[in-house]
């Protein structure tokens, strides 16, 4: 038996760039002003993609990148193609709108089911818009996969059909509060990757040229209202039910029907959690309570910190 090429799926997300807020984060009506937050490739998802591409470089195989989002999220798929992804899938449907992590993981799990067999699912540890780190483990649970979260290093992958009959497995090290632990999981398995794991490669000029026809004008702003998938603006193509893409670009678009998702389990309807209230945190200076640099000012501060159990 010879070593099989690895089938790797990378889950990515387009996120507002919360680290570089260019204006007020909130609108007057209390909603998040996404225009103030340019859309980017979630940083740790780039580390997950890099981990997948390195495994492909080493063992051979195929890297499929999957994202769920509005049509404009196709941009992170193009960027994945520029870096060497073999195929990209956009999961987009109005029915997915308003999904929390549970509904998102359900849709991703359904899409993974529809991709066919895979050996490894890689995703960033967390997305910078929500910082929840929940979608990875929840997707693993939905698929009955073992998980290794917070991976700072993939130590070894034994692909299926390896010499000597060694069982297919992945060994990875995760960072924990007081050290590190190394775990070995049988394939298929899901790993969440941290920024420590690697230095993501830049886009390849050659691949940018190859896929330049897939480059669309960036859509104005970042909008989480789902556009009509048939719209020209979407710059993606539909896949027929027979699974054959009718392509302008190499971005495959799946809607809720394509992955046979139950309507009650996706989007807002499939989300147990509700946002009751959001409040803006003023980023401009002047938020800190000023303490007088006097003996009395400092003494009062220390007393307050002790009363609040901040200091022992």
């Amino acid at each position, binding site marked *: 038996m010879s070593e099989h090429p690895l089938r790797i799926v990378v889950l990515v997300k387009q996120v507002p760039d*919360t*680290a570089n*807020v260019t204006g007020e*984060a*909130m609108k007057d009506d209390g909603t*998040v002003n996404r225009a103030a937050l340019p859309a980017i490739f979630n940083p740790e998802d780039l580390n997950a993609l890099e981990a997948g591409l390195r495994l492909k470089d080493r063992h051979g195989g195929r890297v499929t990148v999957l994202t769920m989002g509005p049509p404009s999220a196709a941009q992170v798929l193009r960027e994945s193609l520029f870096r060497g992804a073999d195929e990209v899938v956009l999961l987009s449907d109005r029915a997915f709108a308003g999904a*929390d*992590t*549970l509904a998102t993981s359900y849709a991703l799990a359904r899409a993974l089911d529809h991709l066919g067999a895979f050996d490894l699912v890689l995703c960033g540890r967390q997305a910078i818009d929500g*910082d*929840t*780190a*929940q979608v990875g*483990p*929840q997707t693993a*649970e*939905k698929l*009955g996969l*073992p*998980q*290794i979260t*917070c991976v700072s290093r993939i130590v070894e992958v034994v692909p299926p059909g390896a010499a000597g009959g060694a069982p297919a497995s992945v060994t990875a090290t995760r960072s*924990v509060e*007081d*050290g*590190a*632990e*190394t*775990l*070995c*999981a*049988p394939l298929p398995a899901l790993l969440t990757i941290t920024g420590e794991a690697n230095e993501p490669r830049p886009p390849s000029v050659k691949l940018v040229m190859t896929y330049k026809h897939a480059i669309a004008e960036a859509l104005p702003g970042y909008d989480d209202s789902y556009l009509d998938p048939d719209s020209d603006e979407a710059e993606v193509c539909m896949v027929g039910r027979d699974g054959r893409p009718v392509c302008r670009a190499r971005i495959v678009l799946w809607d809720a029907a394509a992955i046979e998702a139950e309507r009650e389990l996706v989007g807002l309807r499939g*989300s*147990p*959690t*509700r*946002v*009751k*209230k*959001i*409040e803006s*945190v003023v980023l*401009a*200076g*002047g*938020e*800190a*309570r*000023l*303490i*007088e*640099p006097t*003996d009395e000012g*400092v003494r009062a*501060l*220390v007393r307050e910190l002790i009363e609040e*159990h*901040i*200091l*022992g």
Partner: protein
Amino acid sequence: MGSPAGEVWVFVETIRGAPADDGVAAPLRSGAVAAAGLSAAEVSLELLGQARKLAALLGARTGAVCAGGESARALAPALIAAGADTVYLAAHDMLTEYLAQPYARVVTEAVRHFQPQIVLYGATTTGRDLAPRVASALRTGLTADCTDLRIGDHEVKGVEYRDLLYQIRPAFGGNIIATIVSPEYRPQMATVREGVFALPQPDPSRAGNVVELNIERVSGPHEGRNGRPTAAGGPILLDDLDFAVALVRRSRESKSVDLKGARVVVSGGIGVGSRAGFGLLYDLAGALGGVVGASRAAVDAGWIAREHQVGQTGTTVRPKLYIAAGISGSVQHRAGMDQSARILAINSDPLAPIFAVAHFGIVGDLHQVVPKLIKAYRDKE
């Protein structure tokens, strides 16, 4: 759905082995409860304290769900003293080491059987590994990394929900604070950051009981998989798939600088002025039981070793108190410390960006302010 008087639970994370021997910080970090080489994580005890308060508002009881090896039994009295009315204990040698899948199955089955209305987890690497898996199996809501928990009502389209758990957390990189509710699903679950609730004073006179969760190892996938609960009252079955992942190695880092585990971090930047200037910060850290951190600029200037660096390219810290002395507060530095429970900035420049993320600001020369802080703390009695 849980009954209205469902309990308020806390998943108790355990830490094995003796605390690292770095003196002052160790007993604080590993929690006050130590038994047979096992201790409860401090955040779990903090949550038990908060669970008591929430339960009182709800007219409910509290529960601590704890999995571990046989030695975990010894933790029960301390968990009761910290606020648990009932300790749900899964003590079995196959659970000695934390692994996501068997632990998730134990918690999932315990929740299915006892139907608590709320389950809280520390937002630690373990809590954030475990809780989503449990939430997915139970098909219930989960809010990550909460910084506050309250009880309140909620109304949507004329439907009134009473006594929900308000799960309050920062989002969008800290640009907004969101209040999340889970009106229709039980249990309501959240992971909660370390240090946001006070460590409860142990009360050894508190009464409580221990419920043993019966654990059984079976081979192959068993019938209870895929969301079908095991027989009511029957043992929780753990099968080969639950133990598919093997722990190869677990190592505790014996770093000379334990920024991550420190409850207080005293960091210095360019304003410190010299290598000798850091001596003052060591004095303050020593007095407060903290460790010394630094901005990249101070490290690059050669005043202090790189392992002290806090920030995007250094260590990310989340202490109870972060003191930034003479640090202007670049985005990269702030990314490594802005999740601290309290931030005190000392800078002679009132326009320094560090003040934007600080809770307390002192505009002044750190060389004069820091000695005042040391004196005020030493004189606290």
